[in-house]
């Protein structure tokens, strides 16, 4: 995995504050952001300016004199600074709530997509077209000016799906569906970041969303469909090695990661944690993919997610054939 290449994608930025606007909801969020921003500058000056002025004006050395006044209350001013902030806060609250409901409630005509978070990559699927893409740094495509609703779930631990340029974010929770929606109104390529801490490769759990015209989107869907049906086993296995996240824990060059390397694995005798030995053949590999806890190799931990029910027979064969080639 080339981390430098992965981390070279860019959030499109046009100021030092919130990034460039690329969805219909982002403008309202930014409007409120800048309203708070300017009012905070005003309020900050309201506190700091008198403070500095008093420091200059009333400074003494070594308690050389007493205070000019011991006045300790003022009904009007105390009422003002206790009550006025309330009205300001109500404005912020109502504006924020309106924007939130707009982010929360997807329009009924929205196109549905499924997002699954798993250590440490995203799988994005288009149920209407039976297409899915996945992997660290995976690029997926959505049509411009279209309402899109994402139905999100996590496979193992909490993750969070965040697209800075769209101002949307939602946690992926195991065992529960969450949703978010957006309408991307500017063509381009935007990073997707995981924002809920999920372990070792949390910061590599990135993806990219490409916003394109409707025709280009259809063309991409068809191309992706065709590609996933026509690959020969070894090429399919090589692709799945990246897209199913195997590469996060298993190297192909013999180096030790979270799990054993695939290099030279096939045909070898593996020593297991319970002291027994097993020969790595097709049956062992199939079992270790679908139910990894069954046989744990000595000196490794039981950390891998079971792939039972998540791979088609063709895909299991592809992975085994691919691993066989890694001598």
């Amino acid at each position, binding site marked *: 995995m080339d981390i430098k290449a992965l981390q070279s994608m860019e959030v499109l930025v046009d100021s030092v*504050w919130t990034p460039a606007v690329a969805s219909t909801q982002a403008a309202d969020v930014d409007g409120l952001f800048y309203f708070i921003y300017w009012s905070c500058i005003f*309020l900050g000056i309201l506190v700091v300016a008198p403070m500095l002025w008093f420091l200059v004006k009333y400074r003494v050395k070594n308690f050389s004199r007493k205070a000019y006044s011991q006045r300790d209350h003022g009904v009007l001013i105390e009422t003002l600074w206790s009550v006025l902030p309330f009205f300001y806060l109500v404005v912020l609250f109502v504006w924020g709530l309106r924007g939130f409901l707009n*982010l929360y409630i997807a329009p009924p005509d929205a196109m549905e997509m499924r997002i699954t978070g798993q250590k440490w990559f995203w799988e994005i699927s288009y149920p209407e077209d039976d297409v899915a893409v996945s992997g660290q740094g995976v690029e997926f495509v959505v049509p411009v000016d279209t309402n899109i609703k994402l139905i999100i779930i996590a496979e193992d631990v909490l993750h969070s799906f965040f697209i800075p340029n769209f101002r949307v974010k939602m946690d992926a929770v195991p065992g*529960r569906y969450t949703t978010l929606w957006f309408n991307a109104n500017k063509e381009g390529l935007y990073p997707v970041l995981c924002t809920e801490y999920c372990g070792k490769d949390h910061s590599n759990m990135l993806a990219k969303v490409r916003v394109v015209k409707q025709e280009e989107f259809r063309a991409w869907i068809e191309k992706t469909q065709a590609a996933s049906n026509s690959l020969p086993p070894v090429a399919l296995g090589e692709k799945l090695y990246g897209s199913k996240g195997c590469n996060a824990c298993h190297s192909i060059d013999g180096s030790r990661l979270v799990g054993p390397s695939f290099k030279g694995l096939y045909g070898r005798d593996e020593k297991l944690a319970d002291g027994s030995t097993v020969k790595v053949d097709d049956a062992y590999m199939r079992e270790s993919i679908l139910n990894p806890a069954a046989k744990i190799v000595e000196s490794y931990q039981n950390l891998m997610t079971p792939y039972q029910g998540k791979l088609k027979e063709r895909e299991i064969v592809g992975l085994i054939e691919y691993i066989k080639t890694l001598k």
Partner: protein
Amino acid sequence: MSDNHDVDYLRASTGIKSWLLTIDHKRLGLMYLASVLFFFLIGGIFAILVRTELFTHTETIMSAQQYNQAFTMHGVIMVFLVIIPSIPAALGNFVLPLQLGAKDVAFPKLNLLSYYIYVTGSLFAVYSMVSGAVDTGWTFYTPYSSQSSQAVVSMTLAAFILGFSSILTGMNFMTTVHKMRAPGMTWFNMPLFIWGIYATALIQILATPVLAITLLLIIVERTLGVGIFDPTLGGDPVLFQHFFWFYSHPAVYIMILPGMAIMSDLIAAFSQKRVFGYSFVAFSSLSIALISFLVWGHHLFVSGQSALAGAIFSFLTMLVAIPSGVKIFNWVATLYKGAINLATPMLYALMFIFLFTIGGLTGLFLGVLSVDIHLHDTYFVVAHFHYVMMGSTIMAFIGGIYYWWPKMTGKMYKESLGATGAILVFIGFNVTFFTQFFMGSQGMPRRYYNYLEQFEFYHQISTIGSYILALGLFVALWSLIDSLRNGEKAPQNPWNASTLEWTVCTTPPIEHNFHETPHVTTGPYDFGIEEGYSD
């Protein structure tokens, strides 16, 4: 040596046992102070390691696993071993009975027990550091924490034990305030420091048991396999977040209220003025304490909680801004027409006003629902809570240490060293954390080991700032250590302060604080007025 009756508490008895088994609140305060400063150093080392790793956008000095452990240790140590006990347990223990005109706290032996519970808890924390470090973040979110390394059990056990120390200390202080006030020390004659510590004790007693329950449930889940939070066992991970923040948001106020408490005393003493709006400041502490129980859901705006819950929590969260604002305005108003002395404690107090204003105002961005969706779990949040936790609480803590240092040790520190440290801390702090507001609003997520190359510039500035901050803190520490050897003998009341610990009690205090019980006839901030002026 004069009659034993007049000997100060430091020399009243000697030998290691006279310290380890002491039930003198002043000695216990110093022992807490030493322990807290020790862990502040350890937590600070982890902070510097984290910032150094982030100097480049890929690996710099450690692996991803080590980085995750480093920021977890930084968070756990700073929250549970430093900030929560810092002001209440160290300075509160020392000052509270003195300010009330009491001989000791209500339950001196319980006080000693609290200290050893704290030590036990910290030993568990150290054990889990050494025995295969925790990597869950200080929030221990499930299901990650249910599946991560075994050290999670000893670490949560540490937080569980530390919670009891916190509960007992809170209970002790509350009883002391109710029962041990000197004659004439009415509720509204109490210094505002006491009001703040009292409000803190209220939260400690009511909220900490919930943390204990939650951490115990994690341990039960991990060791017995009962499904509570882990979905693979039929549990609900979001339930954990509710439990955790039900404690941890009030805990944020356990951390900030004592800072505010110190502030009122410092501002009064160093402007030689009565605190403006005494009762507003006192009751704002209590109202912050009460509201703090009702805002936990603002940590869950993107966790899949309902929109209605989100709306209610957002509204209640904003209400906290009102009493916090009231305090700030009252402090600034206190300076008006005062006689302002810029000694080191006051420099930290002014820093507090500036940094807390930024910390508080940036909280508005996060309390507002739609904007929080974008900023949640980014560096904007990291910067915000460092402005509040470190920029406010720790600055007040350091200001308080300088303020009461002559009382504790009988020695004066050098002003020039103290001021140099303060200025370096101020510059370092802002360079480190203000930069993070930019990154955060541009979308840089927190807890990232590698990060997008475009953020490298901001991270490098932030890292350089953290070195300046560390240097400033070492200068501050040096000024205190230096005073022990070379410091001048402290006068009875170096700040011309007006509260009992300075006016009646000797410097340093005798073992039983007062020769005879003081009778209080004036308010807490009774300063004179310049001739020729009235009102």
